[in-house]
């Protein structure tokens, strides 16, 4: 096999932020037509490097060459001209604009805004599996479709080099497969990909080459066919690849959460987003909810948390004495006080106050409880102290507790949240996608903590799109489809593929 020549070469890239060196002397060579993965821990500097390649940030040192020529990318426009496109880790979409507007934005010159553009858009939608009306607002799309819109955006601009920054973090296996199919077919057409993911199996499945970044600098480049995921992880962190398996069962027969016949009507009132949902979680048990995004998992969690008002049905929670108490009419705060901890699926929207320091975030949700509060008054000193404890115990990498939460890397934000939610001595933990976008090291830590808590009798309701995580952690798995709990699976026997087909309803139709 003759080596194709490099299309992208980054040499000696250094980028400093206030307080942090994000990239330091990074070298990266990508050859034409390959899928080149970049791996590294949270905060290792992957996104920064990609943003530099996409012209969104300027390197302090180093050179970039594209197609053999040294280029200066002062802004995304330069990068687009050089044939580079980027799908960002956090979607760069304007919610209030339509799909078409989002795609056309900035590229109106290519096909105009009329029929030609429509045709091109339809063609690309087809190719990427985006089956929505181009005039719907992006606000109304689910994550997978948003992801596709992002890819369509890149292709629409005629990019030949496509950067995918953690595109799979929010996708279910079927969607990941669909994405990979797209990638492969495009690869065959001569596109080049830069691919970032924390899921090392995926990396090995799709990549032709892997570059590992540690602490802002390149550690080395390997052939994924020749390394195991474990070896890759070791390159990244120098530790073993953890697995989410639970060995011995700690399930008791004491119910902690009982949801009965829960119904939630949509806001416009003519359909149900939750229909007749009943489930029980016992002390020491982890109940996993599987389901394709948008089938009611979010709503279930938010209804149990009291953030949405159930239209019918009851939610009961065990009090300290052990007997169940009806909490259907309580507000979110009262439910939290009754002993529910909550790891929200979207940490930026529901988990953190990004512009507040860490210690302030420690108070959120616990503003009425010791040690951070005495009911009416907040105790900042105690909050700082307890946050330091969380930082210590949960290995949150931060210069201090005065740092704004928004400045932490995603994994560390998540560890902070897990630490906080387990600090209130909950009887029930509701964890939605607890390790989404989190690197392997942090993932291991979070799993470890959850297992430990479960061992101490904690009941956990786990929602996750990561089926390995779901199978590995849960004692029972329930599958959610169109607002109903349709089937149950034994994590000891079920495979991700089976689970995946149950989630899409394939199993149901067959039955």
């Amino acid at each position: 096999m003759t080596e194709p020549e490099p299309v992208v070469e980054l040499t000696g890239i250094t980028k400093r932020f206030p307080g942090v060196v994000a990239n330091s002397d990074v070298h990266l060579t990508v050859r034409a037509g390959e899928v080149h993965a970049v791996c590294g821990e949270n905060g290792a500097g992957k996104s920064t490097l990609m943003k530099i390649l996409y012209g969104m940030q300027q390197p302090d040192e180093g050179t970039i060459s594209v197609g053999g020529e040294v280029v200066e990318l002062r802004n995304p426009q330069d990068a687009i001209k050089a044939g580079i496109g980027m799908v960002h880790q956090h979607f760069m979409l304007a919610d209030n604009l339509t799909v078409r507007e989002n795609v056309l934005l900035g590229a109106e010159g290519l096909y105009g805004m009329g029929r030609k553009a429509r045709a091109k858009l339809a063609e690309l939608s087809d190719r990427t599996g985006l089956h929505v009306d181009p005039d719907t607002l992006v606000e109304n799309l689910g994550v997978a479709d948003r992801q596709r819109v992002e890819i369509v955006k890149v292709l629409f601009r005629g990019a030949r080099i496509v950067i995918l920054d953690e595109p799979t973090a929010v996708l279910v296996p079927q969607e990941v497969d669909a994405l990979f199919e797209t990638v492969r077919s495009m690869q065959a057409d001569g596109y080049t990909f830069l691919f970032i993911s924390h899921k090392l199996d995926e990396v090995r499945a799709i990549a032709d080459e892997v570059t590992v970044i540690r602490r802002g600098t390149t550690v080395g480049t390997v052939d994924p066919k020749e390394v195991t995921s474990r070896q890759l992880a070791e390159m990244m962190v120098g530790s073993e690849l953890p697995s989410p398996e639970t060995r011995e069962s700690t399930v008791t027969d004491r119910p902690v959460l009982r949801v009965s016949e829960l119904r939630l009507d949509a806001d416009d009132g003519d359909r149900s987003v939750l229909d007749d949902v009943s489930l029980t979680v016992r002390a020491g048990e982890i109940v996993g909810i599987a389901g394709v995004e948008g089938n009611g998992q979010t709503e279930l969690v938010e209804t149990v948390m009291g953030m949405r008002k159930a239209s019918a049905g009851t939610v009961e929670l065990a009090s300290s004495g052990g007997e169940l108490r009806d909490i259907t009419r309580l507000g979110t705060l009262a439910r939290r006080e009754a002993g529910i901890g909550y790891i929200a699926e979207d940490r930026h929207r529901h988990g953190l106050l990004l512009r507040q320091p860490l210690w302030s975030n420690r108070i959120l949700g616990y503003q009425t409880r010791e040690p951070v509060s005495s009911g009416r008054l907040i105790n900042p000193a105690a909050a700082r102290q307890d946050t330091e404890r969380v930082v210590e115990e949960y290995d949150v990498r931060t210069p201090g507790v005065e740092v704004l939460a928004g400045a932490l890397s995603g994994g560390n934000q998540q560890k902070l949240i897990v630490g906080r939610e387990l600090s209130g001595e909950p009887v029930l933990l509701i964890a939605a996608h607890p390790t989404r976008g989190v690197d392997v090291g942090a993932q291991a830590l979070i799993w470890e903590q959850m297992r430990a808590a479960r061992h101490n009798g904690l009941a956990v309701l786990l929602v996750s799109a990561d089926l390995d995580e779901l199978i590995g952690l849960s004692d029972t798995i329930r599958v959610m489809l169109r607002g109903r709990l349709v089937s149950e699976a034994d994590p000891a026997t079920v495979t991700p593929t089976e689970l995946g087909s149950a989630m899409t309803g394939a199993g149901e139709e067959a039955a």
Partner: protein
Amino acid sequence: MSTVMEKPDPTVTTSKRRLPGWARGALWAVVAIGVLSTASYLTDMPILTSSDTSQTALRLGLPILLAAIGGLWAERAGVMNIGLEGMMILGTWGSAWGAYYGGVWVGLAAGILFGLLGGLLHAVAVVTFNVNHIVSGVAINLLGLGVAQYLATLVFEPISGNPRESPPVAKFDTYSATFLSDWLGALEDEQRVVLSDVAGLLRGLVTHVSPLAMIALLLVPASYFILWRTRFGLRLRSCGESPVAAESLGVNVYLHKYIAVAASGGFAGMGGASLVLLEGGADYLENQVNGRGYIGLAAMIFGNYRPSGLLGGAALFGYADGLQLSGGGAAVLALCYGAVLLLAIIVVLQLIRRHWWAAAGGVAGAAVLYWIYWTNDELPSDLIPYTPHFVTIIVLAVAAQRLRVPKAIGQQYRRGEDT
């Protein structure tokens, strides 16, 4: 700190079928005219739908409309513009100055130019220096006032002998569609229910219309077209929705914001010019803008950041203002009566939709209004001048709002610094 108005919760997805915007607007207009004509018939107050009323509505609503369009451009690009007032003031000075030396069209151009300069200043502060949008707006209101006074003393006083006023300046001629207007006039005089009312309202809009009014009215569809149908407009709006995304797609966010805010100032300046250059206007007169910039901003939000909506807001305000000025308390009472009718319709609708609470609220509101109508021959004269303000609040309270605020409004965006 960024001050953001109520953001719609995206988790609340309304998947319900809805009429397209223009159809709903038309429906509302039909309902409004129906209610007004019924009220005018039942209370024997032809002024509710006379051609004079619609003409004054147009005239009083015009500066507000232009200010609102100015607001629309800025806010769609993500920049809050509290400074509309100051930009309008600059516009009044500029247009008087231009018109004195070069006639109405030069006056209009100068008014736009002066407003535009105010807008540019706002842009420099807000876009380049990341100043809080409200602080900058308040400062521009101060500067607009101060600069206009300063220039008036410098330039106008030697001519007019009065530092607060300009000498008389040329005004726009007005035009009538004579044939149409006569025909409508005949219809109006026939006093036939609804038909005559519609004729009256329409006739006011085709007689004594100045080119400036026509331009202003055309700016509504033009703004829609530019902002929603062109590439420039798409880019501009993307800056108000997600500047980071826009930047990542190669849109020059700073440039678009600059253009939008400058245009915003230009429209506000035009609004100022409309105070000066229309027949019966004031020439330049200190303090003549008198809060219209703020009202324009309100009309724009009233219209949910949309051209057609803000036209409705400005028209409503102008209509109610004209009505209270020419009809006084009696006309306002008749309007109350109209509101009762409107509420009755809404209550029926809510009952059909089984929204019991909303219906009950409607009944209560209608009862209060009817009680006011029934027990008063004259409303307290001190409150009548504020009829348009009351009407605005009542309409909003009844219609409620699902505001679609540009997402990134008020955000202090810096290239390369996300979140």
